C-alpha cells in the first residue's frame, strides 16, 4: 500500500506541474493524478507555445519592455472589459518573476518563431513548444520526489463541512480512495465533453472540433459545482477559432489553424458572405471567426482565394482544394455553383483600385457598395487556379470554472473550502469573462499554479 500523499494535484498540465513542483519544494509529499496516458500527458499545455510576460527591459528571449499597464490594457481590449482587475493584475505582475523561475525549473525558451515576429516583445516562446515545457517539468518534479499516476481519473471529491475529506480515482478499472491534507484542482475546462457543450450551446456544438486534449471533460469541475463550490463564468463562453474543417475531432492543435481569411472571401454553405474578412490583421481577428462560423448553417464556412494570394499566409497542414474554375471549385466543395459565381462576381465588381494592396498591414483597399463590406485587402478573385478551404469552429477551452480568490482558494458561499485550491484553465474564468490574449493562459496557469502549490503545502505542513 502506498503512503497517503500530503497533497494530491488533479491534472497533469502546466498549472498542475507548477503547483506540484512548488509544493514539493516546500517539503510536501505530492501525488499528481493525470487522467491521460503518458504520451498524452500535459492537457492543453501540450499544444501551447508561449507565455505572455510583463517585463521592464529585455528579459530572456523578450525584447524591449512590456509594462503592467500596457499588458492590462491589452487584456481589457480583448475581454471587452470583462476582466477581474485584481486577479488579472496579480497574474500580470507575477509573470515577470515566473520567467526566471521557469528557466530554473528546466523550461527553455527560443526566439520568436518565424511568422510570429509581432509577439517578440510580449510572448516568450518555449523551445519545442508546450510539450517540451511539460517534459521539463515532469523531469524536475520527478527529481523532487513527486509521484505521478497516469490514466488516473478522479471521479469524486467528497466535500463536507467546508473541506475535502477524501477523493476517489479510478485506474485500470480499480477505484482508489485517498485522504490527502490538501487538494489542488488543475484539470482544465470541460470542452472535450461535447454533450456538456451542447447543453450550453445548443445542438450546434456537436459540429465543433476540439483543438486540444480529449481528456478535459470537466468531471471534477462538475462534481465540485454540484456540491456547491462557487462557480464563475458563462457556460456559453469558450475560446474558439476557425480551423480547417478537415481537422481531427480532437487534438488537432496549432497546425489546423488557417491564416488565409484576410486574403479570401468566406462564404457559408449557401455561398453567401457573412462578415468583413478584412476587418483587421489576422492575429487580432482569428479568435472571432470561431463564433462567426458557429453561427452559420451546419457550423461551416468556406474560404475562397485565387492564385494571387496563395503565398501570402503561413502554410497549414492540409493542402487547399484546387480547381481551374470557380464552378469546379464549388462542385468539389459542395457549394451551389451559380450562387458562388454570383457572390464572387458581386465581390469582384465592388473591388476598386488595388494598387495600394499590402498584405502585411491594414491597406484600406476595400470594397464599395457591398454588404457586408471587405475593408482591407479587397482584391478581386479572378486568377486561376482557385483554392478553397473549409472552416469549422475549433474550441480551445471553456470559461465556466471554479471561482478562486488571490490565494487560488475555492469557496462555498463566502466561506473558503479550507483545503481546496484551483489553478489553470479550470479557474481562468475567475479572471477572464470572455475573449483571450495569446499566451495569457500559460501566465494564469504558472502564476496560480505556483500560488496554489505554496498554499496547499502551507496547509499540509
Amino acid at each position, binding site marked *: 500500500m502506498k503512503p497517503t500523499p500530503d497533497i494530491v494535484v488533479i491534472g497533469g498540465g502546466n498549472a498542475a506541474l507548477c503547483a506540484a513542483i512548488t509544493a514539493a519544494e516546500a517539503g510536501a509529499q505530492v501525488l499528481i493524478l493525470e487522467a491521460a496516458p503518458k*504520451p*498524452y500527458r500535459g492537457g492543453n499545455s*501540450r*499544444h501551447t*507555445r508561449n507565455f505572455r510576460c510583463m517585463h521592464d527591459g529585455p528579459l530572456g528571449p523578450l525584447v524591449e519592455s512590456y509594462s503592467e499597464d500596457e499588458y492590462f490594457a491589452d487584456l481589457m481590449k480583448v475581454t471587452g472589459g470583462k476582466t477581474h482587475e485584481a486577479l488579472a493584475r496579480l497574474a500580470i505582475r507575477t509573470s515577470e518573476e515566473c520567467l526566471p523561475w521557469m528557466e530554473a525549473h528546466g523550461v*527553455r525558451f*527560443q*526566439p520568436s*518563431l*518565424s*511568422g510570429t515576429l509581432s509577439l517578440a516583445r510580449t510572448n516568450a*516562446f*518555449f*523551445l*519545442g*513548444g*508546450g*510539450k*517540451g515545457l511539460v*517534459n521539463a517539468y515532469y*523531469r524536475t518534479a520527478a527529481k523532487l520526489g513527486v509521484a505521478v499516476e497516469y490514466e488516473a481519473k478522479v471521479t469524486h471529491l467528497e466535500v463536507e463541512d467546508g473541506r475535502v475529506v477524501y477523493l476517489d480515482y479510478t485506474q485500470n478499472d480499480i477505484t482508489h480512495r485517498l485522504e490527502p491534507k490538501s487538494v489542488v484542482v488543475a484539470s482544465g475546462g470541460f470542452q472535450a465533453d461535447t454533450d456538456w457543450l451542447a447543453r450550453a450551446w445548443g445542438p450546434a456544438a456537436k459540429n465543433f472540433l476540439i483543438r486540444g486534449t480529449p481528456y478535459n471533460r470537466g468531471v471534477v469541475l462538475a462534481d465540485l459545482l454540484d456540491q456547491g463550490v462557487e462557480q464563475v463564468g458563462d457556460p456559453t463562453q469558450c475560446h474558439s477559432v476557425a480551423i480547417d474543417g478537415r481537422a*481531427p475531432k480532437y*487534438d488537432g*492543435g*496549432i*497546425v489546423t*489553424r488557417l491564416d488565409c481569411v484576410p486574403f479570401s472571401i468566406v462564404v457559408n454553405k449557401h455561398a453567401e458572405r457573412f462578415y468583413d474578412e478584412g476587418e483587421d490583421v489576422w492575429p487580432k481577428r482569428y479568435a472571432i471567426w470561431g463564433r462567426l462560423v458557429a453561427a452559420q448553417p451546419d457550423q461551416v464556412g468556406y474560404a475562397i482565394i485565387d492564385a494571387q494570394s496563395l*503565398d501570402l499566409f*503561413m*502554410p*497549414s*497542414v492540409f*493542402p487547399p482544394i484546387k480547381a481551374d474554375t470557380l464552378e469546379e471549385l464549388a462542385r468539389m466543395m459542395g457549394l451551389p455553383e451559380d450562387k458562388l459565381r454570383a457572390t464572387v462576381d458581386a465581390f469582384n465588381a465592388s473591388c476598386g483600385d488595388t494598387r495600394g494592396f499590402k498584405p502585411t498591414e491594414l491597406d484600406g483597399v476595400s470594397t464599395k457598395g457591398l454588404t457586408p463590406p471587405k475593408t482591407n485587402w479587397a482584391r478581386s478573385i479572378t486568377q486561376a487556379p482557385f483554392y478553397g478551404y473549409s472552416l469549422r469552429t475549433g474550441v480551445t477551452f471553456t470559461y465556466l470554472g471554479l471561482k478562486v480568490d488571490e490565494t487560488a482558494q475555492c469557496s462555498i458561499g463566502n466561506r473558503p473550502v479550507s483545503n481546496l485550491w484551483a489553478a489553470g484553465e479550470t479557474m481562468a474564468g475567475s479572471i477572464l469573462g470572455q475573449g483571450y490574449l495569446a499566451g495569457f493562459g500559460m501566465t494564469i496557469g504558472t502564476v496560480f499554479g505556483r500560488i496554489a502549490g505554496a498554499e496547499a503545502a502551507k496547509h499540509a505542513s
Partner: protein
Amino acid sequence: MQADLIQEARRQAEICNACRYCEGYCSVFPALHANRAFSDGDITQLANLCHNCRGCYYACQYTAPHEFDLNLPAALADVRQDSWEEFAFPRVVARAFQRNGMAITIAVTLCFALLFTLAKWVGPSDGEGFYAVLSHNLMVAIFAPAFLAPLASIAISLRRYWVATGGGPVRFAHVRAAFQSAATLRNLAGGHGEGCNFEDEDRFTQARRLAHQAVLYGFALCFASTASGTVLHYAFDMSAPYGLLSLPKLLGIPGGIMMTFGAVWLLDLKRKADPHLGAAQARSGEVAFIALLGFVALSGLVLYAMGQTALMPTLLALHLGSVLGFFLLMPYTKMAHGFYRLAALIRDAQRH
C-alpha cells in the same frame, strides 16, 4: 531514391511547417520553414542536415498514438540512409554493406585473412620492426590505393548529392561555416547548448555529442599520426618504429585512446536509445561500423604496447586488416555520413 520514403518525410515536413514549435533545436527547421513546398532534393538535403538529436520527436505533440503519427527523426533517417545507398559508387556495394553488419564483419575478416597471408608468405623482408613482417613498399602498395580509391568513390557520390540538392558554387565562407558547425556538433547542442536527447528519452545530455567528438577528434589525431609518419619517412628519412616522444606517437596514442573510448561510449548510448527514432533497418550496419572503428583504434594501441613481443606479427595483421577493411568500406558504411553531413552543412550555409 525510394519514393515512398521521400513522400513520408514530405508529409511530415508539411505538418512541421504548419507548426514550427521546434525552430530553435537545430538547422533543419529554419531550412524547412524557408519552403512552402518540398522537392525530392529539398527532402534529401533536410535528411542529411538532420543529426538525429531527437529533440523534435520528444517535444512533438503529434507523435503516435496521435493520428498525424509524426516521427521526423526516423523519417529523415530513412531518407538519409537511402540517399547514401543511392548516391554511392558503385551503388550495389553500398546496398550490400550499409544496413548489414554481418557483411561488414565478413569483409573485414577477409581483410584479416589477406593480411595474415601476406605476412606469412609474401611480406617478410629484411626490414626492421613492422617492416620485417610487411615491407614498407608492400604496405604502400596496398594502402595507397585502398585509401585513394574510396576517396574517389566518395567524390563521385558527393557530386551526385550536390546535383540532387541543387547546390551552387562553394565559397570559403560556406565551408568555414560547415566546419565550425561540425567541429562543435552545434546541431547536437539542442539550441540551448545542453545537448541532445538520445539515451534517456527526453533528457538532454552532452553524452552523444562528447562520445561522437571523442571518436571524431581521436580519428583526426590518428590520421595526423599516420600522415606525420609518412612525412618523417619520406622527407626526413626517419622510418618506423618511432619512440614515445615522436610526433606519430604523441598524436596517435591519445587519438587511439579517444577513439576507443568514444566508440565504446557510442555503442553503449546506442544500446540504450530507442531504435525506432533512427534508421531502424540500418542498425546492425551502424553497430558493426562503430565496433570496427573501435577495433581499429584498440588494435593499434595494443600493437604499440606489445610490439616488442612475439605476438607482434599477429597483432600487426589484425590492426592492418581492420584498417584496410575500414578504408575499403568507407564509402559504403556509416563512415559516409561524415562526408554527406559536411556537404549538407555547406549546402545549408548557401541559404544565407
